[in-house]
Every structure is written in structure tokens, then in C-alpha cells.
């Protein structure tokens, strides 16, 4: 018999809100990146406009979590679930902001032809989105093995980031300055997004185990 059925339902609701926020952030990143590749200013503007939804949802999650703590007085794993939810929501909201940043950079680049193939950037984008997708799954299943895999994927993003930045710097001159700057920023935004996903994975680990990943292993 579940003694605290109502509380269980509320924890589930909190989890669902987080997943919804993560989907918004993931959508912002993929849509803004597609806007860059396809030079689609309308989509980029839409990403910028839609960011308010993510901001409001993060506030809603925080309020909901605070009420749960106040009213249910959770301990142990329940408390960690709620604390982790607050921290994870903050990471995800930041990721949605990076989607906005990418959209703005895409608009600045406009319809200029790209000065180099975007392959490493595309790789960063794909891996980062995969990391977000897996982190949602790890969060829902409270899966620490998956968390660890996500953290390892970050190294690959960093590798492509280095590659992209080196290529851009080689092309850096007066004529290319705008695009080198904007593409470097986009690479940076993707790299930071992957870092925040890594934070999420670490928080999932903490949530499940009650200790920090990488210590006492």
C-alpha cells in the first residue's frame, strides 16, 4: 500500500514539469540551430519569443518544489528529488537561453554564405541534443548508469568544440570577423549546453545515490 499517495502524485507532477521544460530547451536548441543552417530568420525569432514560456515554467517548478518542501517535509531521497528538481530546472532554463543566443547569432550571420563547413558544429549539436534526450530518460528512470554515459559524452563535445574554434581562428581576418565571432559564440553556446546537461546528469546521480559522482568510487 502506498501511504503517501498524494505526495507520490505530486512528485510525479514535478518530474513531468521538468521533462516538459527539458523538451522546450531541447526544442529551442534544435530549432535555432536549424535556423542557422537554413538561414531561417522567422524560426530564429520564434525561438527568441518562446523563451518566456521556459522562463515561466522554471518559476512554476520552483514554486511547486518550495510548496512541496513546506507542506510534505520530505527527507532522504524524497528531499533529494525535490532539491535536484530545482537545480535541474535551473540548468535547463539556462539551456533554453542558449537556444535564444544561438538564434540571435543566426540572425546576425543572416544570409552570408558560411566561410567553412559546419561539420564539427553539427556534431556538437547532435551530441548535445542526444545528451539532453538521454538526461530526460535518466531523470525519469533515475538511472545512474545512463547519467555516467551522459557525462562521458561531454568529452566528445569538447573535442569538436576545440576543432571548430581552431578552424575558425585560422580563417580569422577583417573580412570574416563577423562570422568567425558568431560561429565561435554558437560553438561556445553548444559547449555550455553540454556542460549544463552534464550538471543534470551529476544531479541525477546525487538524487539516486545521495552522494556525489566521482567521489568514493
Amino acid at each position, binding site marked *: 500500500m502506498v*501511504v503517501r499517495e498524494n505526495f507520490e502524485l505530486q512528485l510525479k507532477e514535478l518530474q513531468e514539469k521538468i521533462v516538459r521544460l527539458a523538451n522546450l530547451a531541447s526544442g529551442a536548441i534544435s530549432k535555432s540551430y536549424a535556423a542557422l543552417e537554413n538561414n531561417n530568420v522567422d524560426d530564429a525569432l520564434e525561438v527568441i519569443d518562446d523563451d518566456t514560456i521556459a522562463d515561466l515554467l522554471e518559476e512554476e517548478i520552483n514554486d511547486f518544489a518550495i510548496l512541496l518542501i513546506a507542506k510534505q517535509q520530505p527527507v532522504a531521497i524524497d*528531499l533529494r528529488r525535490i532539491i535536484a528538481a530545482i537545480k535541474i530546472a535551473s540548468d535547463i532554463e539556462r539551456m533554453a537561453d542558449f537556444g535564444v543566443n544561438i538564434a540571435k547569432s543566426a540572425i546576425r550571420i543572416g544570409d552570408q554564405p558560411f566561410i567553412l563547413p559546419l561539420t564539427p558544429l553539427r556534431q556538437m549539436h547532435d551530441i548535445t541534443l542526444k545528451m539532453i534526450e538521454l538526461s530526460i530518460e535518466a531523470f525519469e528512470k533515475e538511472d545512474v548508469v545512463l547519467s555516467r554515459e551522459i557525462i562521458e559524452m561531454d568529452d566528445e563535445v569538447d573535442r569538436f568544440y576545440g576543432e571548430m574554434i581552431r578552424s575558425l581562428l585560422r580563417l580569422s581576418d577583417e573580412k570574416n570577423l563577423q562570422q568567425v565571432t558568431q560561429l565561435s559564440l554558437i560553438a561556445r553556446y553548444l559547449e555550455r549546453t553540454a556542460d549544463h546537461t552534464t550538471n543534470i546528469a551529476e544531479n541525477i546521480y546525487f538524487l539516486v*545515490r545521495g552522494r556525489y559522482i566521482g567521489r568514493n568510487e
Partner: protein
Amino acid sequence: MNMTLMRENESPANGFENVESVPFSEKVYETSNLNLWYGENHALKNINLDMHQNEVTAIIGPSGCGKSTYIKTLNRMIELVPDVKTTGQIKYRNRNILDQSYKVEDLRTQVGMVFQKPNPFPKSIYDNVVYGPRIHGIKNKKVLDEIVEKSLKGAAIWDEVKDRLHENAYGLSGGQQQRLCIARCLAIEPDVILMDEPTSALDPISTLKIEELVQELKKDFSIIIVTHNMQQAARISDRTAFFLNGEVIEYSDTNTIFSNPNDKRTEDYITGRFG
């Protein structure tokens, strides 16, 4: 031992490894292999617990888990129940109190007890406090006055009653009565104070006052408290023992029990998933 492995595999026979994260202090009670039967009913099963000086030890667990039975063995009040049989040892300051040569009167001058329901005598506040000292032969009015003031101050009720010491204790509120009972307990200058759900009959503010008081008292006494209120155990105790079906499932420092217990059953209980 690596706690991770324990969680993933089986719990150890006892979950006591984390206890050492609370700084060491001298042991007041050492219970070893304690078993207790009420007739045929095996109420305490192989209990092994050490309790330390100047600490608050909380005992938690669902109704019928043996926690009240256990605390009543610590001052041998359990002997008042007919047909009780025990095996094993409870050492208080290195002497086995279950040994029948241990005089129960000697034990109870060292070990005071506060009960669930405040139980002042139908006497004045003053007479309640001096009841024990008088039995111990103290007659000097000045000495008794000093004991009254010191005990009532110790129980954080002096300021509320100092002008009406000779009024009947029944005129006090429930929370005040409970603090008076604590004062009565302090008057015999015990070493240990046992508290069996001391706040379960009190309102929230009186409860918090008693909790504050317990924190003060542990500077001078060792306190063992049975409580149904898990948040109370979390707030005031240094170590917590979780009892279930007459067994100690986990005994650890309180921070561990309430943040990351080792045993699934402890976690299920403190998070309210059963009990």
C-alpha cells in the same frame, strides 16, 4: 566498509558503520544480544546498541516495533509487566543492570524518566520537584529551595512558575506540566534521562520548547528519547536507532539516517512509505 556496495548488495547484519562519524564519547549504555519475551511473544530480538554520554539518542519505529519496550528495559521498568523474560546484557556504566544483584533503586537514582503524558503529582509545584530529594533524605529547607530553583531553571520553566511555587501543579498547562516533570527528574541529579514520547500530548509550541530544552540538557545529561515524530528525531538527536518488528534495522548518526540511510526499510519508513 563501502556504503555504496552495501546499498547495492545486502545490508550488513547491522547497519552501524556510520555511527563513527559522530565524534566518540564515553558509552553510557551498552546493550548486547538483548532478547525479550512477553510470554511467548518475542518482542526484542538480539538488540545491540551503545549509547553515549552527553548525546541525544533517538529511537524511532512504527507502533509495536519494540521501541517503548526497549527504553523501559533501560531503567528496568519493564519488570512491572508480568511474565517478561530477558536474555543478554544491558551494561550501564559497565555494570549489567539485568543482573538481579543490581538494585533497581540505585539504577533509578541515576536514570530518570519522562513519560508521554505529563504526570505531576497532585501536589504543589514545589513539592513535585522536591519529592525525590526528600525521599533521599534531604530535609534542609535552604537546600531544597536551591534544588527547586536549579531544577526548574534547568527545565526552562522557572520564570513561568517562580511566583506560584506553592500552587497545585495541575493548574499548569500541559507543556508546563511536562517541563515540571523534567524538573522533577533533574532534581535527583540523574546521569541519564529517558523520554518516552515526551511531546506527543503537547501542542506544537510546547513541543518546540521541550526540544530546545533537550538540546540544553544534553550538555549535562545523556538523553534517550523514543519518538513518533521523525522530524523531532531529526532535529534534536545525535544518533538514531530505527526499530522494526523488535529488531534494530539501522543505528547510525542522525544525519545519515535522515539524508541517506543504508537500509531500504529505514528509507521507506522515514519517507513515509510504510508505518
